[in-house]
């Protein structure tokens, strides 16, 4: 199926001009976000390939790619270092490199970069560091930002890439991606930590004494919950991280500023399903609030038809007429296949209209549903072409 004919006249949202977005030299970062299972990572890879073949020098940062996606880019596996994707058409002067975020590795590297060797060793040995650096709650989002910052810095220095396309972590909600870095930043830089580290300094004023007492109670409880040793471990980790990062909050704010800069464009990826579009709507609102640029909605796996005038009702009535005529069994069944498809298209159109009503100005790019997943570069190319055709 190649064409979409499901648009209700007069309600068409602006089409997202994907090629213009990819070609715009002012676009340095494209962030693909959206809820899990919508094909975000694959869309990021397809757009990266398309941009590279049109002459951009691209690095695509994937978060949790299926093994098959890595293989589709000719890489047996992806790791924490950008690797050149082979067999990309470089005639236009482009480049495609791909990597996968390794959260723990990135955290370790950040520590190694900023700490003296013995200090780093002490941090790595700390049980709380191990727990923090390998957990998925927040750290992954923060490290995705950290990695993006590193890639961008490298691009600024050696000009290796002029476009970075980022996939976002499979969070429970798309919004976690925006919130986690600040949460971790303000946590490590926050009041609690300061109190926790130095309750003794806080004597004097009454309200401080109350805080102090709270911290004291907390320390006592943590000791009892975890056993002794705990405070020493927590305190030494925080002191170490604090000296290394010199203000997590500043870094988080810097990252946020990156995201707000005009060179960063967001694409919200969704499938025409209720949950995915609801998440997309939340995200679109949030981006607006935070003054980040939403380039458009990528509507993935859209069902289409080339026989739009054969409605559900007409197809089913026709099938009904043929039901008692065995010589037309095939046509009857084919009409029922079409009716099912039209039903699905109807549902998808309804959901999409709903989104458009809320965000009439958000351009949309569609990609048709495919029977099979992407297996190779050609599959990625086809998806890219589909997205560019809108």
């Amino acid at each position, binding site marked *: 199926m190649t064409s979409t004919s499901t648009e209700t006249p007069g309600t068409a949202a602006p089409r997202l001009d994907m090629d213009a977005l990819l070609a715009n030299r002012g676009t340095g970062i494209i962030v693909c976000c959206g809820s899990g299972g919508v094909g975000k990572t694959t869309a990021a890879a397809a757009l990266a390939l398309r941009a590279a073949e049109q002459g951009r020098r691209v690095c695509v940062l994937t978060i949790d790619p299926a093994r098959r996606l890595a293989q589709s880019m000719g890489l047996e596996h992806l790791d924490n270092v950008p690797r050149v994707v082979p067999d990309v058409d470089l005639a236009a002067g482009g480049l495609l490199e791909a990597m996968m975020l390794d959260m723990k590795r990135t955290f370790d590297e950040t520590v190694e970069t900023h700490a003296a060797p013995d200090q780093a060793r002490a941090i790595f040995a700390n049980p709380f560091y191990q727990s923090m650096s390998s957990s998925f709650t927040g*750290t992954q989002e923060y490290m995705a930002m950290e990695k993006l910052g590193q890639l961008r810095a490298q691009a600024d220095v050696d000009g290796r890439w002029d476009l970075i396309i980022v996939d976002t972590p499979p969070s429970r909600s798309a919004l976690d991606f925006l919130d986690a870095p600040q949460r971790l930043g303000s946590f490590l830089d926050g009041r609690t930590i300061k109190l*926790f580290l130095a309750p003794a300094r806080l004597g004097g004023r009454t309200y401080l004494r109350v805080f102090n007492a709270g*911290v004291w109670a907390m320390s006592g*409880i943590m000791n009892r*919950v975890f056993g002794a040793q705990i405070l020493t471990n927590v305190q030494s980790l925080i002191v170490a991280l604090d000296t290394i990062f010199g203000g997590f909050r500043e870094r988080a704010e810097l990252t946020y500023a990156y995201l707000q800069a005009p060179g960063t464009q967001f694409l919200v990826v969704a*499938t025409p399903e209720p949950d995915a579009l609801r998440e997309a709507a939340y995200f679109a609102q949030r981006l607006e609030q935070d003054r980040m640029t939403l380039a458009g909605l990528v509507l993935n796996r859209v069902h289409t038809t080339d*026989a739009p005038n054969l409605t559900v009702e007409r197809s089913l009535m026709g099938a009904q007429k043929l039901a008692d005529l065995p010589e037309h*069994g095939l046509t009857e069944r084919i009409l029922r296949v079409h009716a099912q498809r039209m039903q699905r298209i109807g549902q998808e159109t309804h959901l999409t209209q709903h989104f458009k009503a809320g965000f009439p100005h958000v351009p949309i790019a569609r990609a048709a549903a495919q029977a099979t997943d992407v297996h190779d570069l050609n599959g990625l190319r086809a998806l890219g072409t589909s997205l560019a055709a809108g």
Partner: protein
Amino acid sequence: MVPDEVRVEDVPSDPGDWPGARLHVVTGKGGTGKTTLAAAAAIALASGGRRTLLIEVEGRQGIAQLFGCPPLPYAERRVAVARGGGEVHALAVDVEDALLEYLQTVYHLGWARWALGRLGVLDFVTTIAPGLRDVFLTGRICQALQASQSDGARYDAVVVDAPPSGRVARFLNVNQQVVGLARVGPVRDQAESIMAVLRSGQTTVHVVTLLEEMPTQETVDVVAELRGIGLPVGGVLINMVGKPVLSAGDLIQAQSRQLPRAEIATGLAAAGLPTSAAVVDALIGEAVDAADRVALEAAERGALASLGRPTYELPWLAEGIDLGGLFELAAVLTDQGLEVSGS
């Protein structure tokens, strides 16, 4: 949150699909409909006058949306009445409340509780030791499971809308989460008693999937991962299965791209529908798509069958999922053998 001594219940003799299972953990790749099927399972398991509890742990209020009720507070409340008078209750577990509750029970906090909240200390604790979140969340689940029979709060089954398959093994493997942080002490004991419940015959982890490549692959992966950490894998719930329309003969013709154009055009004429080449081409193209999909689905079914777990197939609902749809899916689950054994 968990009684000091965890007693693994005797396995009842009823030969249902899940003899003895009272804790049904539902996971699956994002977008497969895991929350929907967790809710349908809770309804199915409540049929025949039973009481079930549906728990969500990720703060998304997905259950409230499904059942069309206001956001759930941190308290168990009834959200639906099942066939035969059964009751479905729901609970959205909030990690801070669960942590405070735990501290309150174990340490009788009093005013210090206020200070903990005021200072953002809870946030601190769960950030510095993220694994703790899961200990408190799973602990609250086990607590619900073990609520005593005498106070009337006993549930015949507890269904958990768990984190997606990429994270579920970590979520359930709480022992691993605290190892290193706490070698002894109450949290360690807590984690061990939770693991005892999770590894007992009371627990079963179901995986929701679609007949598509990535969800199938993720299902195969998560089953291996769960088995690797000794957690009991339950059923494979295949969601959104389309109704087969084409016959075996049609499929062969479609796959070899030999659907008879003339016959279809004649058929369309007999049905009083347009017979233009464009329409015939469109219909043939769609039939070929459908046939390709059937072939793909057969391959995915084979991969899922090789897991050796009972499978359930849930229909794709054209009307979308509303309360009626949930009951429809619940009835399908019951028909295919998902029920509370014993009692």
